């Protein structure tokens, strides 16, 4: 009886934990009318349900602008409720900064609100969205239940845009992916970098072009020198009041590129390159070891090709 009872209690506890699927989203105020939901600096797991990403929203006079929709339908729904708890205005626009799954798989929850992204992001979500969603099902499990890909219908262009009475500066950049949108809210001085900026968490590189990424970081850092600049909301990691996320991301990418080139120059193969030690400065970043190995897999084939000479 005792055994049966404890078994039942274990079952009950498990069911309760699994049944509520609560991401615990709490809006963090970044500036006047600008809020962010800061995810964990972890990899995707069944425990975090994919809440490893930052999303946010801007309260404009005529309504609310949402920046990224999170990793699942449930996240999007909970985000929508958490936004309503801060401000009751209607949602006027949802923007996806790039085509990685933790940034757009909550789109379903914003039915009826225009969804917008750069043309390259729209293309990427259309082509790879389903494969990404399947992969997140595999990595996080039932948190993803009912999640389906919704491709944004509105293409964004670089430049100034007046949305619901708020002046946004859209920067069409690239390097983390083929199309990375950064959004600078000129009213508050808050810069949403998307995944061009990682902070206190090693950057991910599955679609990276390091050279273009470094150039994008320069463009973003120029904004932090403008008089009105107040804060950065990076794609992953805590909010910063200075350019630290950009500098940290740049330092990691510079080191990564140099380490891969040096390995290729020395004649090492991919396994030997993966086995190399990470300098202490970078080893302290969460997920540095796993992201370094993943990056070797993504980037080393291109780097080694540069040092092999045509044979005739």
């Amino acid at each position: 009886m005792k055994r049966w009872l404890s078994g039942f209690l274990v079952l009950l506890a498990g069911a309760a934990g699994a049944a509520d699927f609560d991401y615990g989203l709490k809006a963090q105020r970044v500036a006047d009318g600008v809020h962010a939901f800061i995810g964990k600096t972890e990899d995707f797991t069944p425990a975090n349900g994919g809440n490893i990403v930052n999303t946010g929203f801007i309260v404009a006079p005529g309504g609310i602008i949402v920046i990224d929709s999170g990793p699942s339908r449930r996240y999007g729904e909970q985000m929508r409720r958490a936004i309503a708890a801060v401000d009751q205005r209607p949602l006027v626009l949802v923007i996806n900064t790039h085509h990685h799954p933790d940034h757009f798989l909550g789109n379903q929850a914003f039915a009826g609100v225009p969804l917008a992204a750069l043309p390259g992001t729209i293309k990427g979500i259309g082509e790879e969205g389903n494969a990404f969603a399947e992969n997140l099902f595999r990595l996080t499990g039932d948190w993803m239940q009912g999640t389906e890909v919704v491709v944004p219908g509105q293409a964004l262009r670089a430049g100034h845009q007046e949305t619901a009475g708020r002046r946004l500066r859209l920067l069409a950049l690239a390097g983390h992916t083929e199309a990375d949108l950064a959004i600078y809210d000129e009213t508050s001085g808050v810069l949403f970098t998307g995944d061009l900026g990682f902070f206190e968490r090693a950057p991910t590189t599955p679609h990276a072009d390091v050279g273009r990424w470094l150039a994008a970081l320069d463009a973003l850092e120029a904004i932090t020198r403008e008089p009105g600049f107040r804060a950065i909301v990076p794609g992953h990691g805590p909010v910063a009041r200075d350019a630290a996320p950009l500098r940290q991301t740049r330092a990691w990418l510079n080191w990564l590129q140099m380490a891969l080139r040096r390995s290729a120059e020395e004649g090492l193969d991919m396994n030997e390159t993966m086995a190399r030690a990470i300098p202490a400065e970078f080893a302290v970043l969460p997920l540095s070891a796993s992201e370094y190995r993943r990056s070797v897999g993504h980037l080393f084939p291109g780097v080694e090709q540069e040092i092999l000479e045509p044979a005739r």
Partner: protein
Amino acid sequence: MNLMTGIAAVLLAVLATVRPALAGQDEVDPLASPRWADMRYLFPEGATLRFDPRVRVLAPAVAENPLQVPLTVDASELGPVSEVLVFADFNPIVEVMRFFPEAAPAWLGFRIKLQQSTPVRAAARTADGVWHVGGTWVTTVGGGCTVPSAKAGSPDWQARLNQVSGRQWNRGAQADRIRLRIEHPMDTGLVAGIPAFHLDQVELLDAAGQRLMRLQLHEPVSENPVFTLRRGAVAGPVEVRGYDNNGNAFHARIAP
């Protein structure tokens, strides 16, 4: 399993007098693979197999990109090796490649496609006919064998087919190393409408015609294969030649 244990028992009885230090090593698969019993059919009937830690297969424990899983096979500690068979228990195409070291040591780095998590193994045959088996588990996302090659999206791959690039190292820690890359889609034939199309034979020779190594490749070797090998005592330029399963031949020279 019974058959294997039987063979093992007979074998041990024979070997006990000759090489007692190896006794007992061929009884249990150190990777505990449910498919190990089937893997025996890769070898000639009656072949002697022995798990041997001197055959090292280096691979990441978790391979995120199933299309490019790096392997480094090192059987050089065994001394002269005539053939190394590389295979993956749970791959739809189990046999990855064979390489036949001659002037070069039994050491090779390359990349493979995996369809799911699997043991990846190398079996090195020594002059006495014994196959020494080493390996490691690789956990992967999967789909590596049923995804079209990148050439499907690249219009000019035919112009570059079988082009070789490479380099030799003469200084530093990797002073006897050769690395080469051959452009080839390496299609597995497991994607609907895309027939198997892969490199078949590749060999490397020195200027005097002495063969360093011959490779017999199968579908699971990654697209645009990159090989890393050690040239041993060989010096000077190295000739690379070979052909794919459609008979497209190539040959190129890697400067010293």
